[in-house]
C-alpha cells in the first residue's frame, strides 16, 4: 500500500473521496510521523486528537453521504501565530506562554470548516521576527535536510515559518499555514525544497493572527506542490469584515484554472536582482528557470526595478515601526506573562514584564521601531521610508506595463547552518533581499523548488505577479514544477 504520508493534499482529498483509504488512516499516519520527529522541534504543541476528531467527522460524513468540505480528510499543521480556540498560541514567545485563545482566527476557522484537521501548532521565529528559526523561545527548528558532505551540521529551515517548512519537507504534514511579512513563507519554502505562496495583501484575513507589521503581514499556504497551494489558498482567502484591510472580492477558482501553458504571457527578469557576486548556483538555476518558462510558451524580457537596493532598509524601518506599535499590547495586564518585582508600580511592571517576555531580536526591533517613530526622527526615518516604499511599488507598476510576471531567485543562498550569521543581525536581514520588495508592494509571490546545489540542498525560484493575479503566479509555478521535476527529499535521520 502507498505510504499515506507521501501523498499530496490533492491525493489525500481525492483518495479519501474515492474510498482508497479512510480519513482516520491518514490522520493516524501523520500523527505517527509527528510523534517520532521530536529532533526537528517543528511543533510547539501537538494535537493528535484534533487531527483524529476531524478525520472521524470526515469519515462519518462520507459514510452518511453528506457533502464533504474542500479539505475533508486532510490533516495540516498550523503555524503558532494563528489563534486557535482552546489550544495554546504563543507566537513562539515566552510572553504568550500559556495563552489559550477563547476565539479562532478567521483563516484557521475557514480551514477547519472545510474539513481540515489540526496536527499541531508549528514552531516559528519569535513573533515571526527572523529568517532562520533561531529566535523561538521553544528552541531552534532543525531542517530535515543535511549537506551531503558527510557532516551532520544542523541546518536552518528558514524563517519565520520554519516549523511549517521543516514539517512539510519531513512529511509530518502534507501542508501547513504560513505567514509572510518580508519573506517568511517563501524563504523557508526555498530552504526546504517545498512551495509556498504569499497572496496579494488583503486576500487572507489577518483577524486572529498575532500581529507583527500589519501593513505587510499576509497568511498563505505552504505545501509540496503548486496544486496543493492553490487548494489551500482558495479555502484561506475571502472577505472578512473583522479585518479592515480585507479585500471584498470573490475568491477565484485557482485550482480549476491551473494551467502551465504560458503562451501569450511575458516574463520580466529584473536586472537589479542579479548583483555582482550573486551565488553562481543560484544564478545558474535562475537561467534554467528562464528557459523553463520560455519552454512553457512565455516571452522573456529584461525589466528594471531601480529602487530594489532600498527595499531592505525601507522594510527595516517600516516593519519595526509597526511592530513597536503592535507589540505595545503586551503589558502583563490582559493576557500572557506578568513579571511583578516586589514593590513594583505599574510602569515597573510593564518594563519588567516586557524585559522577561521578549527575546533579544524582538526587543531590538521594538527599540528600532520606537526610535524611528520618536519625536524629531519620525520624518527623517518613517516618512522617508513610506515615500521610498511608494517608489518601490511604482517600480513594479512600471515593470508590469512590459510584462505579466517576474521571475527571480527566492533566497541568495541555500540553507545555512544554525549558528552561522548570528553574530551580525544585518547579515541575517540580507537573507530577505529578494522577497522583501514584493511584500512592500503587497504583490502575490510564490516560491517553488528548482533543484539542488552542489551540497545537495534545495534552491528555489520566486515568481512575483500583479496585484490580485495569483492565477498567473500559480500557473508559472506549475510550469516550473513540471519542468524542474524536483523529487529530492531529505534522508530520514530524525
Amino acid at each position, binding site marked *: 500500500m502507498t505510504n499515506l504520508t507521501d501523498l499530496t493534499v490533492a491525493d489525500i482529498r481525492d483518495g479519501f473521496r474515492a474510498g482508497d483509504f479512510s480519513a482516520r488512516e491518514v490522520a493516524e499516519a501523520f500523527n505517527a510521523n509527528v510523534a517520532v520527529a521530536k529532533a526537528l522541534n517543528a511543533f510547539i504543541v501537538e494535537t493528535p486528537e484534533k487531527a483524529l476528531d476531524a478525520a472521524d467527522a470526515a469519515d462519518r460524513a462520507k459514510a452518511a453521504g453528506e457533502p464533504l468540505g474542500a479539505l475533508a480528510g486532510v490533516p495540516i499543521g498550523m503555524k503558532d501565530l494563528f489563534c486557535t480556540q482552546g489550544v495554546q498560541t504563543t507566537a513562539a514567545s515566552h510572553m504568550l506562554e*500559556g495563552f*489559550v485563545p*477563547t476565539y479562532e482566527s478567521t483563516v484557521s476557522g475557514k480551514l477547519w470548516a472545510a474539513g481540515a484537521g489540526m496536527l499541531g501548532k508549528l514552531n516559528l521565529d519569535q513573533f515571526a521576527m527572523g529568517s532562520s528559526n533561531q529566535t523561538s523561545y521553544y528552541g531552534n527548528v532543525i531542517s530535515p535536510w543535511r549537506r551531503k558532505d558527510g557532516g551532520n551540521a544542523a541546518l536552518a529551515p528558514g524563517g519565520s515559518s520554519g516549523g511549517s517548512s521543516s514539517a512539510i519537507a519531513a512529511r509530518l504534514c502534507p501542508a501547513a499555514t504560513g505567514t509572510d511579512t518580508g519573506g517568511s513563507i517563501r524563504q523557508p519554502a526555498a530552504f526546504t525544497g517545498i512551495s509556498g505562496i504569499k497572496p*496579494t495583501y*488583503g486576500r487572507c484575513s489577518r483577524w486572529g493572527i498575532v500581529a507583527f507589521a500589519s501593513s*505587510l503581514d499576509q497568511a498563505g499556504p505552504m505545501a509540496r506542490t503548486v496544486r496543493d497551494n492553490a487548494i489551500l489558498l482558495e479555502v484561506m482567502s475571502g472577505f472578512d*469584515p473583522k479585518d*479592515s*484591510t480585507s*479585500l*471584498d472580492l470573490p475568491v477565484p477558482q485557482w485550482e480549476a484554472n491551473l494551467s502551465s501553458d504560458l503562451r501569450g504571457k511575458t516574463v520580466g527578469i529584473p536586472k537589479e536582482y542579479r548583483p555582482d557576486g550573486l551565488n553562481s548556483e543560484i544564478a545558474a538555476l535562475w537561467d534554467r528557470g528562464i528557459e523553463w518558462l520560455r519552454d512553457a510558451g512565455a516571452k522573456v524580457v529584461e525589466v528594471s526595478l531601480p*529602487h530594489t537596493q*532600498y527595499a531592505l*532598509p*525601507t522594510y*527595516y524601518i517600516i516593519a519595526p515601526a509597526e511592530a*513597536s506599535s503592535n507589540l*505595545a499590547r503586551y503589558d*502583563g*495586564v*490582559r*493576557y*500572557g506573562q*506578568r513579571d*511583578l518585582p516586589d514593590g*513594583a*508600580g*505599574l*510602569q*515597573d511592571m510593564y*518594563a*519588567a514584564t*516586557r*524585559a522577561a517576555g*521578549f527575546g533579544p531580536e524582538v*526587543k*531590538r526591533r521594538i*527599540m*528600532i521601531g*520606537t*526610535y524611528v517613530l*520618536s519625536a524629531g*526622527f519620525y520624518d527623517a*526615518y518613517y*516618512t*522617508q*521610508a*513610506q*515615500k*521610498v*516604499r*511608494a*517608489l518601490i*511599488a511604482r517600480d513594479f507598476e512600471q515593470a508590469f506595463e512590459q510584462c505579466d510576471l517576474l521571475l527571480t531567485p527566492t533566497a541568495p543562498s541555500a540553507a545555512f547552518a544554525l549558528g552561522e550569521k548570528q553574530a*551580525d*543581525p*544585518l547579515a541575517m536581514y540580507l537573507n530577505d533581499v529578494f522577497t522583501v520588495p514584493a511584500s*512592500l*508592494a*503587497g504583490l502575490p509571490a510564490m516560491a517553488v523548488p528548482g533543484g539542488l546545489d552542489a551540497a545537495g540542498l534545495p534552491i528555489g525560484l520566486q515568481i512575483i505577479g500583479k496585484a490580485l493575479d495569483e492565477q498567473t503566479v500559480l500557473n508559472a509555478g506549475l510550469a516550473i514544477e513540471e519542468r524542474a521535476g524536483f523529487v529530492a527529499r531529505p534522508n530520514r535521520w530524525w
Partner: protein
Amino acid sequence: MSIDLQTVKKIASLSRISVTEAEAEAMVPELNNILGWVEQLGEVDVTGVEPMTAVIPNHQRLRDDVVTDGNVREKVLANAPQAEHGFFAVPKVIE
C-alpha cells in the same frame, strides 16, 4: 546620526523594556549598525512623492452602528495574569 548609551536607555524606557547597564551598552553598537545602514534611504530623491499608507487600493467601510458582540466577560478575562471581581487587576497606581 549616531546614538549613545543615554539614547539607548531613553528608547528602552519609551519602549517599556527594562535593560541592565550591560544590556544597554551591548545595544549601542548593534542599534547604530542597523540605523547607520537604514540611513542610506536619505539619498533617495522623493521630491513630490506621497508617503504610502495603503499598499493595495481599498476603501474604509462603515457598518451599521449596532452591537455585534459582547457579554463575554469571562472570555475576555480568561487569560489575564490577575483578574479580580470581574476586572483586570494591576498594582496600585494612585497613592
